[in-house]
């Protein structure tokens, strides 16, 4: 019986199929590890994979008025701030995708990206 493809053709086709699958990965893959992104004056200054933090540590943010950020396993917060209302510190520990805290006078924002996403978690919060 005649066959349509030779062995080499099949290998080539399988290669193309794998290539297709690889190209689809970025589209359908999960959101990655839970990552804290710190913006200072609109620019990213720190990107921290919170799932890989084993011991907590602090970071000083340079913009005035100064603040300190505490990074821990799966969480991040403004620990101290020299701004008047300290709303950034009051925002508390950020632990979920989309959680945000900001220090308006200092022009800094901390956002959590990645992490688990399902129908029950918001992509954005109106307030």
């Amino acid at each position: 019986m005649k066959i349509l493809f030779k062995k080499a053709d099949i290998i080539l086709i399988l290669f193309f199929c794998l290539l297709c699958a690889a190209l689809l990965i970025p589209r359908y893959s999960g959101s990655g590890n839970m990552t804290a992104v710190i913006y200072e004056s609109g620019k990213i200054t720190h990107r921290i994979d919170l799932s890989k933090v084993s011991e907590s540590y602090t970071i000083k943010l340079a913009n005035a008025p100064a603040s300190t950020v505490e990074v821990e396993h799966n969480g991040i917060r403004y620990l101290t701030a020299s701004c008047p209302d300290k709303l950034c510190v009051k925002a508390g520990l950020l632990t979920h995708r989309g959680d945000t805290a900001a220090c308006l006078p200092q022009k800094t924002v901390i956002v959590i990206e990645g992490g688990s996403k399902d129908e029950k978690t918001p992509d954005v919060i109106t307030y």
Partner: protein
Amino acid sequence: MGDDALRASRKPNNRTAAALICGAMAVLICFLAYDALANRQEFSQSDIAMGTVISQQLTGPDTEATADKIIGKIKEIEKDSLSWRIKGSEIYNINLHAGKAVKISAETAGWLKKSLEVCKNSGGALDITVGKLTALWGIGTESARLPKQAEIDGLLGGVGYEKVKIAGNDVKIADGQSLDMGSVGKGIACDEAFKILEAKKTKSAVISVGGSILLYGEKKEVNVGIRNPRGGENDYMGILSLKNCCVSTSGDYEKFIIVNGKKYHHILNPKTGYPSDSGLMSVTVVCQSGLLSDALSTACFVLGYEKSLPLLKEYNAEAVFITNSSSVYVTDGLAGKFKLSNTADYKLEATD
């Protein structure tokens, strides 16, 4: 037909079939590569403007430049047009020259006209001429205080949207009046972001201007959490599943002062000069325009649940109301799109 003839007729067929399959796969790979690259161009940015956090999540071509353009535009309209605090802005100049006509840009004149229309249609529940009262209370600033009744009475006479006159791009407010665009500014920013996203052919975007949200070009619905009025900053009480619209919320929790154990929030009732007390903790409005969703959320917060319904209908807008007794009312157009998450503290009420 002999064997040779059969072989000869099969060979080209085999080649044609193989060529067709390879061609189809090449097309598929090109499509997937394009699709993957287009989707991979995701960009997120957070910055501070208009005294609040601006967060952007964009997908499509040239997303970083688009996000930069949007934040640039928002800062520009704050500085050049809408801020009553920044010296030299158009609103600052109108307030400075109260009683005289001031020429402004067609863009700002358009925003003023639209805002004044909501002031009129809400019967003054929204009134952009409360600027002097806003400054007197100073809620959200370091100089926030509980004013004396005489101080409030002295400024109430200046409140009245109907005294604002617009002729072409000339705007005149009455003596003693002062404009405050705080109830529409974030929504205007969403509308301007929409124009840039359209021009830049952005695939999809979720833009939050201090909690006023623009959902753009999404194929799938986006989960918009409604802030829990009695929870923390990132705490939500329910989720709206929405796409291609604007969402704004007004609540009593965002900016306030506590004097002698009593809370005074920042949304003033233009008729009394005091923080609105219509029985609501918050109202979230959904419609097609940012300016309108922002303006209507303030108007509805002042009007209260029942009185807001005709106004929402007039603008083809929908809303979620949270009352002081933790009851949640959802208008018909959002039925099936809202899910209460915090069932321990809130109760979803049936609406007729």
